[in-house]
């Protein structure tokens, strides 16, 4: 199997993987960063969202071979201690029910707020539309994004 050099959460990793392995499975099974979740495998649910060069991307669709030389951030690297404003807002609002989709939600929200620090309600709803929460914690997610936006101003 070929090897790949990855830059994840400001650390370098060399991994051996099949060339078509999605970044998601490299993160989870090879680097042991399991905060990035598997939901659908086809980029439809957003559970596997990570930041690639600052943009929210689905790690189930990004191949390990394409991820080399990119700056990748996972939920584990969003902050050192859970103190990113989005994480703090999530805690304040007590968003999660089962919690499984929440790292993907947080990664989508944090990338979005970096580009739009003062979003309207409908902008928030559209930005978060790609992330499914099967427990339907959407009201709380919406509120937490608003709270996070205020914290980031």
């Amino acid at each position, binding site marked *: 199997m070929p090897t790949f050099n990855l830059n994840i959460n400001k650390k370098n990793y060399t991994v051996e993987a099949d060339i078509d392995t999605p970044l998601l499975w490299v993160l989870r099974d090879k680097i042991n960063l399991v*905060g990035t*979740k598997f939901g659908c495998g086809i980029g*439809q*649910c957003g*559970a596997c969202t990570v930041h690639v060069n600052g943009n929210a991307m689905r790690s189930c669709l990004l191949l390990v071979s394409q991820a080399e030389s990119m700056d990748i951030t996972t939920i584990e690297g969003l902050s050192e201690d*859970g103190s990113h404003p989005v994480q703090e807002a999530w805690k304040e609002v007590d968003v999660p029910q*089962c919690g499984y989709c929440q790292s993907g939600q947080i990664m989508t929200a944090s990338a979005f707020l970096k580009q739009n620090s003062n979003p309207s309600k409908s902008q928030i*709803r559209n930005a978060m539309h790609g992330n499914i929460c099967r*427990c339907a914690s959407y*009201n709380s997610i919406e509120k937490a994004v608003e709270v996070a936006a205020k914290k980031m101003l």
Partner: protein
Amino acid sequence: MTTSKQQITFNRRSFIKTTALASGGMLIGFNLFQACKEGVVPPVDISQLNFNDFNAFIKISDEGKVTIFSPNPEIGQGVKTSMPMLIAEELDVKWEDVYVEQGKLDTKNYTRQVAGGSQSIRFSWEPLRQTGATAKQMLINAAAIRWGVEASSCSAKQGVITNSNGDVLGYGDVVKEAALLEVPEKVILKKPEAFTIIGKGQSNVDIDKIITGKPLFGLDYKEEGMVYASILRPPAFGQKLESYDDTAARAMPGVLDVITIGEKLRQYKDNKKKSWTAQLVDSDKIVVIGKSTWDALKGVKAIKASWVTDSDLESTADHDRILFELLDGKKTFTTKRSDGDVKKAFDEADKVLERTYEAPFLPHNCMEPMNFFANVTAEKVHLVGPIQTPEETAKVVADLLERDLNQVEIEMTRMGGGFGRRLYSDFVLEAAEISNAIQKPVKMVSSREGDMTTGVYRPSVKYKIAASIKDGKVTGYHLKEACINGGMYNLIPNFFPAGAIANYQVDTVSYKSNITTGAWRAPYTNFLASAEQSFFDELAEALGVDRIKLHLDLLQNVKGTTDERIQYSPERLEGVIKLAVEKSNWGQPKAGVYKGFSVYYCHNTHVAEVAEVAMEDNMPVVKRVVCAVDCGIVVNPLGALNQVKGGVIDGVGHALYGDFSFKDGVPQFNNFNTYQLIRMAQTPEVEAYFVESDLAPTGLGEPTLPPVGAAVANAIYAATGNRVYKQPYLNNMKVEQNILG
């Protein structure tokens, strides 16, 4: 009536046990679920048990640190937070000082380590508080002995014991002595007004781990030397494996092996073993063992398999035809409840209203796909993962692998959703059979496609509801249910309007299908409530009376009933109706806002809801739902709010979009690109209000979901003038629009 049935009797002395820890500190254990039953005889000699034999316990260290073990599986319903809150309240410690750990399964002594039916809090309300109060009293007693004073002159608060002389000791200072004391005969529980933890919103105890991505879920669990497995199962219900070619899969560098499983399950059936949690597909399955999840998933795609038809290949069109034939009386109905003379009431009626309501199959679609870890060795069967029924599952695995039950160990992880899917153990059995075959620790992971197409679905169902009207009054009510694989649960015919209408009958009939079906969030009532509460909207209209008034009037007939079978409280239904009416400004028109009302009792909780719909691009959009709930005392307001809002939005989503069908046995949807779940931009704002109560708490995981379908349907009618009878409402309206336009 429900309230009187909630009395819990138990013998505290038999079920509480303390143990001094070798490392210092004290453990107090309590056999929670055995204790809920009346006259239960301890299963073994209590004095011979150690703390591990109890499924709910407190650990207090010498430093005064408190660990509370949460006994029940956590599927997002919040019990890992709310159950320990009950203990901590009576133990009287600061919630910030409590560390919560998931308790393991103990198959020997316990009967209800289950997540299901919204029952965890209801059953544990008294016993868990008793556990905390008992520990507190023993700590007080130890301090009193140390001080040489009467225990009655001492008190404890927030982890600190004081006496009338002003002496002070922490729980940690006396914990070792306390552990050796007699368990007190009697403890006094706090009055609700003295609660400092119960009734105050507490964050999810796993919140820090969730927001930082720490391993928590089944899919996150790992062990040294673990391999990964993924399974190719028959593509259609009614097919089984004939042959397969694994050459391409075996050529993949990440594929370690390809095997088949199924033999053990056949033996299990041949041995006449069965369990309601084991939904068994009668076919061999092909398993690809890989170095990583991806290797296994990819390997499965490279398998070329041939399948043969083994039984009927059913289609949704067949089901629809069959269910209609059943409703029309093709087969004899089973009468679940019959009051008065329905036939006579209908014969003598001035007018009869009859409507038919339809709902499709539904997959659960937990965000965490089905998975489980298994390590089968000569010594034991070690299982780790997300399961709602660990106790029953352990039994099935023991039977499957022909092992002693005490060799089967199950650890429950946090679950990425349950909704009923994880009541069933098929994926645990698969993992166990794979590990047994390869004798290695293995993690079985389903792809989303595998998860959605080999489910245990909410069965498709149709209801025909009829009411007779005479002199402007409802004189009779007749509900017929035709369902795939089994009908409604026996208590349900005793829900509203049972007791409220003199001539009342509920009949069921079912069709046996080879498609696996089972419980789905709020089983049986998730669509029944939609049907009945839509019918009542139309009935009120036919009677020319106000929708709310019709309900309140009917409830009058139930007050003071001596009918023990009646499951709901008319007073509590009245309470939620009035609260919902008030909070939603029902009856006060607002331009562009169309309202629909619904009220329902299920899972011991009374709920009324008002949905508001607006028209956008000629289609109804649900904008807001007001939800009034009577669940007794609200243990954790934060968690309760999440459950209520989640249940309502989940209900709106499935009522509008949830669709699933089969063609020749093959599921027609397999991932989220075609199967539609509600998403953020389609979500209404939910407002939740709780009836103030000092009654014992009831569950919240399910009861807010069933009524909302009808609230939405009735609001759609208010907005469009069209009644909707078939879920998913929105998809079916679109089809109609396309046909018309």
